[in-house]
């Protein structure tokens, strides 16, 4: 059971980190508003749930899949706008990006609070996401946990295929590795930047949508995850998708095992301390790509 909790946390951490692995890992943009993009996805699902249950109750069992797509589009479009209006001026100043996106996150949080209220909300989930499998008497596996895990796997695979097997993915990686050269080779690097950023935000939206099956969403739920998300990406070594996956797995297992032995928040404190210590010894993370910066 404890290892299942670990797997569940693994898929949550990986979902959160995937988008950031693209935005921070690939582009080097420190997006502290990443959590708010997740919350945006979650609120989109909540909104579609409300709309569907009010106007089209017949669609209620199926809406969730479409809602995930809408969450991706809404978060991605917002990301596109944010890149166009803010991020593109700050590529040369990473520390300033950090402050500006923190400001953005405050504004987004307060917008959520003004629109949806300070209370946490939960969308009405379709029947098929409730309940649990019972393979044997003592084992009880919740379906929503399995759903999130499946979604995580599919998304990871999709991102990997997109990044390493598609033409646009090739252009994205080329731009990251050598911007000037890529420009000379005819890649529109500014457009690639904008696309990459909004893709990362869209993935955050999907992550937020998936979280609605596990817990409720509040205006500040995004900010609660932001440090963990960054640590997962940094710990794995930026610019390495495998590293992100491995570090999400390690952190999740470590945390769920330690939380079993230590009381309350101290399990999390211990995990964070181990991560920080490892990062001090190996600042480039576990799986660093061997490219000179």
């Amino acid at each position, binding site marked *: 059971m404890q290892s299942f909790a670990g797997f569940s946390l693994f898929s949550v951490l990986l979902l959160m980190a995937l988008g950031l692995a693209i935005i921070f890992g690939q582009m080097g943009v420190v997006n502290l508003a990443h959590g708010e993009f997740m919350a945006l996805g979650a609120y989109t699902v909540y909104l579609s749930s409300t709309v569907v249950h009010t106007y089209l109750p017949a669609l209620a069992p199926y809406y969730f899949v479409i809602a995930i797509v809408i969450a991706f589009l809404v978060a991605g479009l917002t990301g596109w706008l944010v890149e166009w209006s*803010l991020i593109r001026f700050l590529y040369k100043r990473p520390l300033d990006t950090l402050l500006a996106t923190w400001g*953005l996150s405050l504004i987004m949080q307060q917008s959520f609070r003004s629109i949806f209220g300070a209370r946490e909300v939960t969308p009405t989930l379709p029947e098929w996401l409730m309940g649990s499998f019972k393979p044997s008497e003592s084992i009880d596996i919740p379906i929503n946990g399995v759903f999130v895990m499946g979604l995580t796997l599919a998304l990871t695979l999709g991102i990997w295929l997109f990044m390493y097997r598609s033409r646009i993915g090739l252009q994205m990686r080329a731009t990251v590795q050598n911007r000037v050269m890529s420009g000379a080779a005819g890649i529109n690097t500014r457009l690639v930047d904008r696309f990459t950023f909004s893709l990362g935000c869209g993935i955050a939206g999907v992550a937020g949508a998936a979280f609605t099956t596990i817990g409720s969403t509040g205006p500040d739920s995004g900010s609660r995850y932001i440090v963990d998300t960054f640590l997962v990406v*940094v710990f794995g070594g930026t610019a390495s998708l495998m590293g992100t996956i491995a570090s999400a797995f390690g952190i999740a297992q470590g945390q769920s095992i330690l939380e079993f032995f230590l009381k309350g928040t101290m399990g999390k404190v211990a995990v964070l301390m181990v*991560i*920080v210590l490892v990062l001090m010894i190996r*600042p480039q993370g576990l799986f660093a790509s061997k490219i000179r910066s």
Partner: protein
Amino acid sequence: MKAIYNRLFGGTTGVVQLGILAAILMIVLPLSLDIFRLNLVGKYLTYAFVALGLVLLWGKAGVLSLGQGVFFGLGGYCMAMFLKLEASDPISTKIQSTPGIPDFMDWNQITQLPAFWMPFKSLPFTLLAVVVVPSIVAFVLGVAMFKRRVGGVYFAIITQALALILSLAIDGNQGYTGGRNGITDLRTLLGWDIRSSHAQYLLYFTTCGLLVLAIVLSQWMLSGKLGKMLLAMRDREDRVRFSGYDVSMFKVFTFCFAAALSGVGGALFVLQVGFISPSLVGIVPSIEMVIFAAVGGRVSLLGAVYGTLLVNTGKSLFSENFPQLWLFAMGGLFIAVVVLFPNGLAGVVELIRKKVSPFLKNLRTSSTLPTSGSTPLPSPDKP
């Protein structure tokens, strides 16, 4: 004599500017505000210590720490532990099952004072600890990170994680730290009631005095070799390293100094406000303190003080009158300061002076106006 004077205050312009700040803090504000408001200003000024440290660390050395709340909190907790022990003497805690220990320990079934609380029965030790504990922590962290050339964004993220770790750790050990509520009910310092308005006036002036001292000290440090080294490192670190300097130790020293300043700020905070809690240690306060320094203009020591006062006054006004708008304003401020005014208030003042000084020159052709010691801000991070 002249040289020392120039180094301490940065010449005549520096003296005038510092004098104006001191006059505002110690004459104008106490005369125009009631003690409640003055106490609030005193609280803001304790944040200004952190902002000063950030000017040195971020503005001058180019290292952004998002964990300065950790050092503020360490200093504050040291002070609060002393005050709490004094407040929990056996007579006033006689209804507890174990008299003589702080109330929250009694609630958590702890029957004996933990060993690390013991030394905080002594005031000299406490005052020393306020400065030394944050410095030691900063030293260890600084050596570990700067020696390995961790910098820039990674340093910021790791220090942010530290802020989260400390606030969670305090939160999770209620019996030893007071948990989420923090250490409250602090009343007297060596029998002297710190909540009376007389004491609050005195503490306010102490804070102002120490702040001016901290500014002068920082000014002195910056005007010497260290200041030149920091600027050189910020702008072209490799070249400094190739010239044979140990870059990391300069950064470690600055980090420690900033931490010590923050610790003093934290201790003064506890004395004036009468409590400390993990909510002053975590991620949000730590990053807010960065914006204080940024609003003032990240390279200007005096600017940091004005920035802190301005942002906090704005915060009070907004949250009293339009609580919903405060986060919008704060978020907008973060973005505006970065995109539109990277040099903050000091940059605006500099711009005005540059516009005005040729005009004055035309009026008095003979006089030469000094262009002050502030430097234009190059992009803090080299690609």
